[in-house]
């Protein structure tokens, strides 16, 4: 028997005279129940990654850097970053890499089919930290996905920020995500010189490539960068952080001006399952975006 879920307030258990309890539910919101979302578009970006556009029953109202728990009923659920900037409609964009059970299944779906969405979860970025500052974004690979939600927000009102620099690193040219969009940002700054984009690959793999070759750490030393005016945001694979941070600190950037977006295994997204713990912090609630000075001392934060 499946009781229909009702949503009363937290209640004291009712007790009948005989000492037999009156069954009732005990709290205000069902944490684990997804809402159904319709797939609008699936677009292959690379061999492994596709962009998913879904329509929710109501606007998500998210902040940049937040994530959702995305599921295919019967298959599984996983945390997926929101890759679009804040928006008023009920559209949600995600980019998903095919790695395992759920993600493979999602890649087989077609527009018109349905998925489940919970969220938004996590702290995300606070645009207030960025207003009036020079911004430096450093992304590696799939790190571009959550960062895009922030960059889109920035690009929506570029006048409220100072200079914007984006360094993106990819394994090969074939792995680059959002190339056209990144180029449009860079065009936006062409006149003023306020937006600079540095695109790098580890290896051109003999493919045509109009960017540079090297690691994302390399350009940092030569950047025209005023440590007092700059705020940096980082997102990439676990190995990337340590080296980028070393470079940034060498350039005089205070840890309080560096934001890192961390990834951990998550089962619930709401601070219950214990998987995403980074020392005493929960990546899903206290993060996934952290100000570096708040986690730098945590041995488990940055491997």
């Amino acid at each position, binding site marked *: 028997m499946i009781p229909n879920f009702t949503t009363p307030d937290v209640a004291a258990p009712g007790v009948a005279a005989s000492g037999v309890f009156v069954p009732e539910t005990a709290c205000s919101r069902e944490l684990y129940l997804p809402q159904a979302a319709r797939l609008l578009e699936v677009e292959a970006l690379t061999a492994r990654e596709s962009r998913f556009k879904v329509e929710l029953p109501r606007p998500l109202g998210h902040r940049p850097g937040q994530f959702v728990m995305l599921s295919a009923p019967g298959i599984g659920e996983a945390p997926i970053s929101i890759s679009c900037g804040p928006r008023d409609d009920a559209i949600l964009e995600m980019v998903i890499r095919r790695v*395992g*059970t759920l993600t*493979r299944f999602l890649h087989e779906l077609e527009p018109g089919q349905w998925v489940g969405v919970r969220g938004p979860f996590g702290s995300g970025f606070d645009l207030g930290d960025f207003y009036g500052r020079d911004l430096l974004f450093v992304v590696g690979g799939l790190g571009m996905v959550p960062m895009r939600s922030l960059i889109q927000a920035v690009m929506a009102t570029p006048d409220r920020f100072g200079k914007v620099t984006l360094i993106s690193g990819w394994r090969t040219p074939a792995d680059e995500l959002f190339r056209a969009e990144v180029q449009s940002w860079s065009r936006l700054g062409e006149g003023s010189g306020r937006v600079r984009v540095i695109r790098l690959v580890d290896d051109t793999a003999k493919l045509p490539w109009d960017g540079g070759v090297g690691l994302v750490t390399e350009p940092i030393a030569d950047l025209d960068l005023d440590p007092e005016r700059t705020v940096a945001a980082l997102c990439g694979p676990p190995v990337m952080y340590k080296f980028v941070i070393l470079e940034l600190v060498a350039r005089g950037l205070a840890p309080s001006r560096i934001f890192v977006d961390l990834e951990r295994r998550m089962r619930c997204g709401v601070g219950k399952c214990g998987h995403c713990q980074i020392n005493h912090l929960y990546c899903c609630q206290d993060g996934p975006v952290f100000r570096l000075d708040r986690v730098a001392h945590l041995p488990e934060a940055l491997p």
Partner: protein
Amino acid sequence: MKPKVAFFDFAGCEGCQLTILDCEDLFLDLLERVDIVEFREALSETAPRFDVAFIEGSIHREEDAERLREIRSRSTLLVTLGACAGLGNVQARSNFLSPATNFRRVYGEEELNRVQADPEFWPLWAHTRVRSVKEVVPVDYELRGCPVVAEEFLHLVKSLVVGTVPHVPTVAVCVECKMQENECVFDRGETCLGQITYGGCKAVCIGHGYRCDGCRGLLPQANLEAHRQLLRDKGLDESRILERYRLFGSAEAWGRERRP
């Protein structure tokens, strides 16, 4: 399109295939989802190609290895069923003896002499090493246990039907022992291999008064050094410890033991 599924058996007790046939509640539902094209236990048909081949039993002779390679070439996926196919099972204990010894013990001295003298019997000597399936051909998934667990088989089939990767937990039997709230075998004054063995069996042996003998195979993370010390502390001598480790997963445990 329903996936075409085939079952093949080599040297084993066929308990795994029976376990599957015994999914009585689900057997008919299963038939709705997959096309069983070969199942010698229940069926006399054969098919040229299939999506999934389930292999039961260990590989003893070169002719068996050949047949296995041929099956592999006809199948998209290959899944081992049970400890025989996966680990060599108890019969792999015979690997630690010479072929002549094995033969003598089963057929006697006289027979051994007769067979050794007659070249027509020499192909028999190809018969001397028990191999697990993965020693012969690449394996996509392993269903563990002696016999396999029906729920795990079902989960695998479901995953194949929808095209997802089956979930294979790499946790110890102890985890399930706790979920079943069993009293630990060590508290009964006996010893157990559950801590170093793949779970998934619902700790059924411990739950019914026995211990874990490791039929589901050694976990990748098994801390054998510490476990061995534990067995020593409980009074087992080295040869008993070896017997215990080798019982079901002879071939595997032995290889692992010798790894530096």
